[in-house]
């Protein structure tokens, strides 16, 4: 690494920035990727403002309550992102087990009453003073770092069952078990999905995924046995035909579809959503995409999807340019996390998959989550910087 730094040292020593910076010149981050993120954030801030003020007015009496909080977190997040982009990402490799270990500990702690806060029959949040966060959010990053480290460390033996499947699955199943105790189904699915995609790219043979599929199938069967067949049949019925019986369980889906459908191709106009007036629960959070559809129509929705596609393309391109396997896997893992979550959120909101609580990255209101996401973007930007340094 020191050799690389030396090689990269330019000769411009008398710039205005001073000698110190000139000596340790860090390459520029990927501007295109930064712009995509900023556009996503700006879009998100506008929509959170529009979607949150009726609920803010109703709940707190101040229609700017949520948006002012949101902007604060976004600004903090951007600062964190820029800061992190200057940190050499290899530091995460060195502390991969530590990071994972902390995340794992938090995942256990959250289950303890008194530490984990129960909300809507699930214990997913830890409150420390004014800060609250979901350990599962941290665990997403923990899994990505750990897997990136393990894969880059022993990539050649990823094709074998003992090295390419067993440790990863032990890890994932343990995490899944802990998270289902909260319970947190959507988070479990997300972490499982991120892990599997990283394993596949890392080199795990396709046929082993049949085994993994079998394990997942057993898990599903377990859930069915636990919850009862009727519960599953009802859930399926609510998913396939939410309008047949509009009740507490289908209300969100119905109102979401009504918002999207009544928006049509071009929407009612920015700010003109009607569903956000308490018809649509979580309008500024998990279901913000429905408000976007209602106000800006299919066009606005396609813009969101396009931005995530651009983010993925540029993100994968950054990862691919990383000079080491860890950087590659870390970048890919982070982009997969963001895009998979976006996909699942939109799929839920459009009733493409059954309803489960999952937020839309960069758009949904939610303090620590958006900071976490921006921090991860900082890592991507860091990869984009340090990849250049090591170029021969």
């Amino acid at each position, binding site marked *: 690494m020191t050799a690389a730094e030396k090689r990269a040292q330019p000769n411009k020593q008398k710039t205005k920035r001073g000698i110190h910076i000139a000596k340790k010149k860090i390459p520029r981050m990927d501007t295109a990727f930064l712009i995509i993120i900023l556009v996503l954030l700006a879009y998100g801030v506008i929509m959170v403002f529009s979607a949150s003020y009726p609920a803010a007015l109703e709940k707190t009496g101040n229609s700017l309550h949520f948006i002012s909080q949101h902007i604060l977190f976004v600004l903090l997040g951007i600062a964190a992102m820029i800061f992190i982009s200057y940190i050499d990402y290899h530091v995460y490799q060195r502390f991969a087990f530590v990071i994972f270990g902390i995340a794992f500990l938090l995942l256990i702690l959250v289950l303890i009453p008194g530490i984990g806060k129960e909300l809507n029959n699930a214990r997913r949040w830890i409150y420390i003073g004014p800060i609250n966060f979901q350990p599962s959010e941290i665990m997403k990053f923990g899994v990505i770092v750990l897997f990136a480290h393990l894969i880059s460390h022993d*990539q050649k033996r990823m094709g074998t069952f003992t090295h390419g499947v067993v440790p990863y699955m032990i890890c994932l199943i343990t995490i899944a078990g802990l998270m289902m105790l909260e319970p947190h189904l959507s988070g479990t699915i997300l972490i499982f999905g991120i892990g599997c995609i990283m394993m596949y790219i890392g080199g795990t043979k396709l046929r082993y995924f049949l085994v993994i599929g079998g394990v997942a199938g057993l898990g599903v069967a377990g859930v069915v046995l636990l919850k009862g067949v009727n519960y599953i049949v009802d859930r399926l019925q609510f998913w396939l035909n939410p309008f047949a019986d509009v009740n507490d369980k289908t209300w969100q889906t119905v109102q979401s579809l009504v918002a999207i*459908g*009544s928006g*049509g191709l071009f929407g009612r106009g920015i700010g003109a959503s*009607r569903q956000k007036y308490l018809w649509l629960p979580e309008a500024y959070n998990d279901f913000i995409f429905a408000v976007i559809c209602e106000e800006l129509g299919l066009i606005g929705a396609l813009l969101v999807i396009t931005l995530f596609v651009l983010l993925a393309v540029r993100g994968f391109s950054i990862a691919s340019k990383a000079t*080491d396997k860890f950087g*590659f*896997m870390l970048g890919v893992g982070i982009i997969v996390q963001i895009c998979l979550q976006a996909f699942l959120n939109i799929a839920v909101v459009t009733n*493409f998959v059954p309803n489960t609580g999952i937020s839309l990255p960069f758009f949904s209101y939610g303090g620590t989550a958006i900071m976490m996401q921006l921090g991860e973007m900082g890592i991507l930007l860091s990869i984009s910087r340090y990849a250049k340094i090591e170029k021969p």
Partner: protein
Amino acid sequence: MAKGATVRMKKRLNRHVMIVAVILVVALIGNLFRISALQGDFYTEYANNQQLRSETIPASRGTIYDTNMEVLAQSTTVWDVSISPKDIASGIDDPQKLSEKQELIAKTLSEILDTSEETLMTKIQKIESQYQLVGQKVSKETADEIRAFATEQGYTSEIHLAENTKRYYPNGQLAASVIGFTGTDSQGLYGLESKYDDVLKGTPGYTVTLKNAQSEDMPQNFEQRYDPVDGQSLRLTIDENIQSFVESTLYDVVKQHNPKNGACAIVMDCNTGAILAMANYPTFDLNDPFTIYDEQLAAAVEEITDADEKKEAKSAAQQWQWSNMCISHTYQPGSTFKTVVGAAAIEEKVAFTNSTYSCAGYVTIGGEKMRCNNRSGHGTLDFTSAMVHSCNPAFISIGLSLGAERFFDYYKAFGFTEKTGIDLPGEQIGTYYGADMSDVSLASSSFGQSQTVTPLQLITAVCAVTNGGYLVEPYVVEDILDSNNNVVSSHETNIKRQVISEETSATLRTVMEAVVDANGGTNGSVKGYRIAAKSGTSQRMNPGDEANTYIASYVAVAPADDPQIAVMVMADYPQNGAIYGGTIAAPAVAAIMADTLPYLGYSPEYSEEELASMETTVPLLYGKDIAAAKNKLIASGITGGVVVKGSGSTVIKQMPSSGAKIPKDGKVILYTDEGTKQEYVTVPDVRNLTATQAKQRLKQLNLNVTVTGGVSMTSAGKVQQQSVSAGTSVPIGTVIELTIIGETLD
């Protein structure tokens, strides 16, 4: 340090994972497109259903005017009062203060609204509720009081006033069953209110606003307003003045004769079919239609103890008082129908005015003995006399000579087999025989004793008989007016057909005038006017009818030479002795004619005899010398003469005294000195003498005679009452008032 990602890893990412991702994204967009574009309508409608709140703005209901634009029915603004117990209770934690506030509201409102304080308190204590109706359709004054209270106490969100409308009928029961009434939501339920509901009600407007999931208004500037279109108004052919007179006349008939099945009267324009008045008894108050108006009927309902039966009886009584007998009551018309048979026979030339008929008091047709009203027979009579005497055998003979087929053709042509088409709901038609009727049926139909008709059908047919042969469609709505009272559309006279020729009609008019003028005048006569009419007394012969019960009716047109208005009165089942149409209905028709004809601008033309018996006021003659007194009397039109008693030269006493009314051919007795005593005579019994005989008797005794009723002094009618009983001693010159009942000829 390790090398970068292998080619295999990049391939797995950029090929395999990306391909799956592209498929998923395409599927996601496809699904989105399905929802937004393909199913957009469904979701938009669903959204509108839950987000939009539509509030109606009531249209104001049109007014009903009489022909002179006097208001008969009008909608006025009233207020519904409601309270919000939730708002009353909100923000007050101290139970003491809360109950004080609740009690204040309950007490004040119950006083203003005149309702029970307890009931109000129960409503106020439903503190979860935001809406409790406490007063419906209250007047402006009441609403103002409540508003003042609410403003004063600052209770504007606790007490609400909402505008509503109420139908008001300024004349109460006037033309009740014609006008009809509306229900609680101002929808027409009966009469014209129901028939013209679509015209009167207008189109309500509405506002559309957005609401959130808690049913509160969204703070968005979204309000669409669709203005209401007010209802149109009606100007009727009914004249409030005529209607009111007709009703009071009809109620007098009811009072006097107590017809068990009610009574009705119609005044109609002969040539256009315009109904000038239409009255029924029993009747009701339009402002309170559910209360039984007739006292006997109400008492009878009250007597029933069984709750169900009582309810049923009350409902039946309501239906009856609401019904418009003129168009819904079918009855056997009796002799009034002879005008129709006569017209058909003259038109078909099977009868002429000089045709002769013989009457032996009965005639046997198909083995059935049919009686004449004159049991001993009328002997030989011509067509006119047959009508005047209402001779059944003569009309049986006329009917038989027409034959069943032609009889039925005319029955149909005069409109008896169809509804008249009047613009009122609930019109009925009677039962009738077809062209294949038997001789017995034909014979009884010929004097109106088999088939049933409605009063309106009969008067419309009689109009056709007398107006030149034209069957008109009767109607009550003259104009439809917009909210500024501009005419939107007007009724046009609808002549359905000409049934008989002008000549035949003229003949019948002459014959019917003879009926009225018979024997120097009948109960149907009106001094100064030429009336053509026919009475009818039909036996009630429907299944279930009691034996020897009758329907009395009378139908007349005037002026007889050029009929303009037709009047009909019918009383079903009079219970106080008298049964004849000529006795019960004719005086009522004459009274209506006497009132209506001058009102409509037809001036009376008096005959010499009528002029002579016309009354005048006796002037004050005290202190005048004899010659001057005589001159003064002549100047006053009193030409009957003067009887001077005593030897003085100036009048010191007169009989009748000044201001009294005597006929122009009456006598005035003058006393000229104190010494001459006033002369007295004993009043004889003149009852059951004819008017002429009675007058002669009384005149011989130097008494003055006046006659009440339309019957002329030369009528063949008998004196029924005298104002001073027989055997009383009175001063000479006293005025004796005679009540004469015209001879009944049916």
